[in-house]
Structure formats: structure tokens, C-alpha cells
């Protein structure tokens, strides 16, 4: 359970609208494709089986071991493929709508004017001229078995045109969607409109999270925050992640995992936490005050005035 740093969010939102400028225009590159898949469950635990090798000579024994290994490895690969094919069936009602939805349409929706934060445009033609910041991503979406939750994975690169030759800031971001009311499946009879809207929100949030990390120069600050086991809402059950707390949004935390990737997940709110009207309309909002590396004094997580994270 945690309290949201409402005051901190409000202050950051005010700052955000104040600092957005032409110099901070962000261009969003259109990815070549946007794959979708189902989420397969974890592989079953392999049991122990006693095996006697026919080994009249060391060479024959080695061949027997290698053959045994190849058989087990092949069986496991086939099982993984079967589980993924089974999981992908969850997308069947939406396939027609998603295949007709171009990556450009997705990015155009992500670039819609935001209420705060830096302005965004699709990187194409004249719109690209003179802009300093460029964001590249390679999103992949996955749907959980109940058809009510999504998972976005994307590599995000932030390039600064003002300093040519610098290594782009690059980070892997994962965003888990919120639970839908009553865990209802996304409808498929409306050209999957709600599903598309949710995926746009997730991708826009992933860009915000990456820009936030870029602003904080996260790699340099990585050791300031201790690793702890954080709890979050993974559908109807608790998820857990050993990670550093990077920031907080609307009933949501952003973590830096042991792999160095960023993970944005929903969390349970304390019962006495005041509900924010802004969070009700924009559940994935995440404060990005400016583009580019911040000074050390401002390089603090949004949670600085919020609650402590879980254990």
C-alpha cells in the first residue's frame, strides 16, 4: 500500500507546462512494424528422470549423453512453441482490426497534444526540420489470457540533434496496463477501438518514462537508490520485483529492475489516499518536466515526497 505524492505531482505538472518550449519539441519515429502476441504461461518444471547410458567405451558414453541432451532440448523447444501458439489465440477476435492499424496511425495518436510535458510530433518531412530531440522505439504488445490487460515492451532511444556524435540514451521499457473495470475483455466489435486507445496510452507512457529516465540520467544515478522487493498489482494477484524505485504516477510505480530495464506497473492505493481528478481522466500520466539531462538538484524521483515503497 502506498500514498501518492499528490502535492509533488501537482507541482511537477505546473513546472511542466511552464518549461515546454520549441527547443524541447520531441519527434517520434514511426517503427517499421508493431508486433502483437499472447502471453504464454511459465514453462512447467522439468522433473528428474533416472537415465542409464549404454557406455561400453567413453566415446559411446559421450554420444549417448549428447543424444540425450538433444532429445530433451528438442522436446522443450517444441513445448515452448506449442505454448506460444496456444497463447496467441487470445488475439483472434482483434486480428482484423490490428492488422489494418498502421504503425504510423499508432504513433500519430501518441503524438496528440498532451496537457503537459514537451510537445510531440511524428518525425516525417518538414516536421523533422530544426527539432532537437528525436525518439525511436520498437514497441511490441502482448495480451494476457483474460483479454483485459496488456503488456508493452519497447526499446526507446532518445537522440539529441544539438550534440551530434553523442551516444543516444537508450533504455528498455515495459509497461503493464491497469486492470479494466470488472476485468472485462476488450470489445472486438468496435474495430477494437478501446484496445487501440489503451495501447496508445501505454506507448505514450513508455515515452514519458524514457524521457524521465533520460532527464535523470538514470544510469549515473543508479546506485543512489537501494534495491528492494516491490509489490505491484499483476491482475488479480500480487506481482513482485527486486528493483529500485524510480518514480510514481497515478496508482503506479516505475522501477529500475535488476536487468537495468524500466518497469511501470500498477499498485494498490491506500484507502485514505485522495483521488486525483487528473488521474481519473489520464491514468497513465507521468511527470516529464523537460527534455534533456536535469541538473543534480532536480534529479530526484517524483516519489521524493511520497511514501516509501514496499519492502
Amino acid at each position, binding site marked *: 500500500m502506498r500514498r501518492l505524492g499528490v502535492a509533488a505531482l501537482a507541482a511537477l505538472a505546473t513546472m511542466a507546462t511552464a518549461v515546454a518550449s520549441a527547443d524541447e519539441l520531441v519527434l517520434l519515429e514511426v517503427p517499421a512494424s508493431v508486433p502483437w502476441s499472447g502471453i504464454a504461461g511459465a514453462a512447467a518444471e522439468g522433473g528428474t528422470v533416472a537415465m542409464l547410458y549404454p557406455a561400453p567405451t567413453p566415446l559411446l558414453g559421450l554420444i549417448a549423453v549428447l543424444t*540425450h541432451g538433444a532429445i530433451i532440448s528438442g522436446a522443450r523447444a517444441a513445448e515452448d512453441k506449442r505454448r506460444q501458439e496456444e497463447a496467441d489465440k487470445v488475439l483472434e477476435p482483434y486480428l482484423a482490426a490490428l492488422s489494418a492499424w498502421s504503425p504510423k496511425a499508432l504513433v500519430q495518436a501518441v503524438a496528440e497534444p498532451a496537457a503537459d510535458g514537451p510537445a510531440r510530433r511524428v518525425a516525417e518531412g518538414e516536421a523533422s526540420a530544426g527539432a532537437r530531440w528525436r525518439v525511436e522505439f520498437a514497441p511490441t504488445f502482448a495480451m494476457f489470457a483474460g483479454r483485459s490487460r496488456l503488456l508493452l515492451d519497447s526499446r526507446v532511444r532518445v537522440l539529441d540533434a544539438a550534440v551530434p556524435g553523442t551516444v543516444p540514451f537508450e533504455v528498455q521499457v515495459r509497461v503493464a496496463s491497469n486492470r479494466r473495470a470488472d476485468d472485462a475483455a476488450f470489445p472486438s466489435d468496435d474495430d477494437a477501438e478501446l484496445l487501440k486507445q489503451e495501447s496508445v496510452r501505454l506507448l505514450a507512457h513508455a515515452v514519458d518514462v524514457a524521457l524521465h529516465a533520460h532527464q535523470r540520467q538514470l544510469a549515473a544515478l543508479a546506485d543512489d537508490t537501494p534495491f528492494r522487493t516491490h509489490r505491484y498489482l499483476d491482475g488479480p494477484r500480487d506481482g513482485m520485483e527486486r528493483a529500485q524505485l524510480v518514480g510514481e504516477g497515478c496508482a503506479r510505480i516505475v522501477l529500475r529492475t535488476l536487468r537495468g530495464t524500466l518497469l511501470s506497473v500498477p499498485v494498490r492505493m491506500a484507502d485514505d489516499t485522495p483521488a486525483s481528478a487528473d488521474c481519473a481522466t489520464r491514468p497513465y500520466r507521468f511527470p516529464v518536466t523537460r527534455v534533456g539531462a536535469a541538473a543534480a538538484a532536480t534529479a530526484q524521483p517524483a516519489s521524493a515526497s511520497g511514501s516509501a515503497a514496499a519492502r
Partner: protein
Amino acid sequence: MRLRLTGLLLAATFVFTGCATAPPTAQPLRSEALATQGTRIGVALSTLPKPDTQFPGASCLLCYATASAVNSSLTTQVRTFTTQDLVAVRDDLAKLLRERGMEPVLIAQEIDLERLPEGSKDAGRARRDFTALRSAHKIDKLLVVQVDGLGVTRNYSAYVPTGDPRATLNGAGYIVDLATQKLDWYLPLAVSVPAADNKWDEPPKYPGVTNAYFQALEMAMDQLKQPLRK
């Protein structure tokens, strides 16, 4: 010569099987166990083992040596894992007992079960004699969190791994009535968690397996706390 060999075999049989005692079977928390308000209950952890790797199924000596060698980098990482998170369960369990009207007594020192006298082998009774703790801490009952093994387990079939490594924790949680040595509650723990995203082979830090290890600790603690909630 033959007599000596027979004696050796008998001794080996005694050492490896004679002392083995089956652990108690699972027993739900008895409703009357926590009925008397103000009962003083000690809350203790057994000596925590150091996290390590295990390779069940690699049953011949050469098989085990091969498995150990192949997974040596993983073993090195697992041995750096901390058990500090697990210690917090003592406070959490004490809090839950207090909410149920008990008077918990935190026993700071870990209990070395091997150094306690053997208890009863009867069903429903503690396998160790905890009587000494009764007077030492002025307690009526004792809640023990016993961790027998934790770390990472990878199943083998002789020389060949049959699955990916999984974080594991084995042990039990139980409440002993110190007047009778009867068990008021016995919960076996056998937690097994795969590496995050089913990706484990990430030397040298193995973040997926490391994450799974800490998840296993949390899941074990959840299992221990659940029956004690009001």
C-alpha cells in the same frame, strides 16, 4: 575381512537411514490454539542456511561434479544472496499474533535445531524438544520458522539438465505448545519460482534468477502469514 565389510555396510545403513525422521504432516492452525487472550508466544527463526545451488537427479558422483562445474558461475552468484529479507517475517508474524490478542515475544537469536534434544516421532508432535525455551523466555507456545534449504535448484537427468534453474525455499512454519510439545499448527513450505520471463542464463549477475530468489522469499513469507490473519 567379510565381517569388517558387513560391519561397515551396517554402519553406513544406520548413518544414512537410521536417524531419518519423517517430518510432521501439514496441520491447519487449530482454532483453540490462539483462543486464550494474552498467551505468550515466542516467535523465532531456525538458523538460516546459506543460499546455494542444488542439482537433484545428477545422482552419480561424476554427474554431480559435471553439473556443479557447468553451473559454477550461477553458484557463485547464488552464494552472494542475502537472507536479510526473511528475518523481517519474525516482526510480521508477531504483529499478526498481537492483532489476535496474543502476547508475542521476539526471540532475536536464531535457533540451531540440531543442538536441541530430539522430540517425539509421534504424529502431531514437534520433532525437537523446545522445553528449554519455555523457561528462558517465559513463553507458553513457540512459533518457529524453519528454513531447511534455500537458493536455486536445477533438475537433472544424470548429466543432462531437464529444466531451467528455479529459485527454491523449503522448510516449515509451526506453533508448538511448550507444555505438551504438541503442534498447534504445521505448515510445510516448498516454494519454487522460475526466472523472470523464463530467461535465466545471464551471467555473471543472473538478474532473472536473482529476482526469482527474492520472489521465493516473499512468497514463503506470504504463506506463513496467511493462516494467522484474522
